[in-house]
């Protein structure tokens, strides 16, 4: 038998007098079928938290001076850091693909008098922005722009 949902899931405000059996969880939740992608999507939250704090560390080191900056950059050559960043890159791309796929249909049909663009246009725009920002960021960080 599947495991139980929250004991009060879908319970009426005024339950009847007949005893009911407790609600059951969808059997494929959390890691089977389509639920797997959803659960992994939520777990990327941990990766994003760590990335945010790592970015904080880098920027703080940048403010502390060259020695601190070099120390952090040397640490990033540790295979554990590289492994984490490879996993992070995969996670960020996974998040982008899933979220950008949903984003167009989440826009209301109008905001006041303004209608959003058609959904395929929004999706194309998101991917164009993603590629554009990534290319510009890469060129800047590698010194190809603004050296």
């Amino acid at each position, binding site marked *: *038998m*599947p495991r139980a*949902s*929250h004991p*009060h*899931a*879908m*319970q*009426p*405000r*005024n*339950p*009847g007098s*007949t*005893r*009911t*059996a*407790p*609600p*059951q*969880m*969808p*059997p*494929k*939740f*959390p890691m*089977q*079928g*389509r*639920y797997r992608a*959803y659960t992994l999507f*939520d777990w990327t939250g941990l990766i994003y938290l760590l990335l945010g704090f790592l970015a904080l560390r880098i920027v703080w080191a940048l403010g502390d001076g060259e020695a601190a900056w070099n120390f952090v950059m040397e640490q990033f050559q540790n295979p554990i850091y590289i492994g984490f960043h490879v996993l992070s890159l995969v996670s960020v791309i996974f998040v982008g693909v899933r979220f950008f796929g*949903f984003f167009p*249909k*989440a*826009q*209301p*049909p*109008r*905001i006041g008098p303004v209608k959003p663009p058609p959904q395929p246009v929004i999706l194309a725009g998101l991917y164009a922005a993603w590629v554009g920002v990534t290319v510009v960021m890469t060129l800047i960080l590698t010194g190809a722009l603004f050296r």
Partner: protein
Amino acid sequence: MSEQQKKKFVITRFDPDRDEVPKTQEYEIPVQPDWKVLDALNFIKDEVDGSLSHRWSCRMAVCGSCGMMVDGEPKLTCKEALSNYGDTVEIAPLANFPIVRDLVVELDGFMDKFKSVKPWIIRAKERAVEEGPMRQSPEELEEFKQFSMCINCMLCYSACPVVANEPEFIGPAAIALGHRYSLDSRDEGAAERNEVFRGEGTVFSCSFANECSEVCPKHVDPAAAVNQAKFNAVIDWAQGLILPRGGK
């Protein structure tokens, strides 16, 4: 004459007068190649075990009565071809709902959530009969029409992981219907509904699993409605910061 195909059905049974907890019972029956899952259930009830309880009505996927878990996924049993399933088919009551008996679930919890979103046209001032009917263009209709197609089958509630874990969450179908009315050009109740959408059953509990839209047999796309409703609730909140409602 070729031998008729047989399939085994593993069906959840629960009699509140006799059973502590639900259990499963197996039935092996001959099946026809053009049967839906519901045909098999009706055969079992008619020919094998008259005590089996299940809801059904229209047999053509418009009434929303026959929703059940088939091989772990919420389906309308009148719509699902039996040929899509293997030699053993598991049938259980809709997930996330209290079980009344066998495959029948308690619906009043959904009715409470349904009513809470005020699913009717709200006018600031009722229109007088002499003013004639309210007019609506085809473009205005298109803005909400998709969300009006819901047949209240509740497959979306069975699929939703938030419904499973957060009892107060209003849920996909009810939010989609409330949003349908807020989008209706004849309606003036969006602000009232936004108070419900930001209340205890908050639309922001939705984590965009999109399972509701995946299982919806009528392509209502409740996930789109819920997330549009979040957006509108944010605009309502931002407007409230700039222009507090005061005595409204």
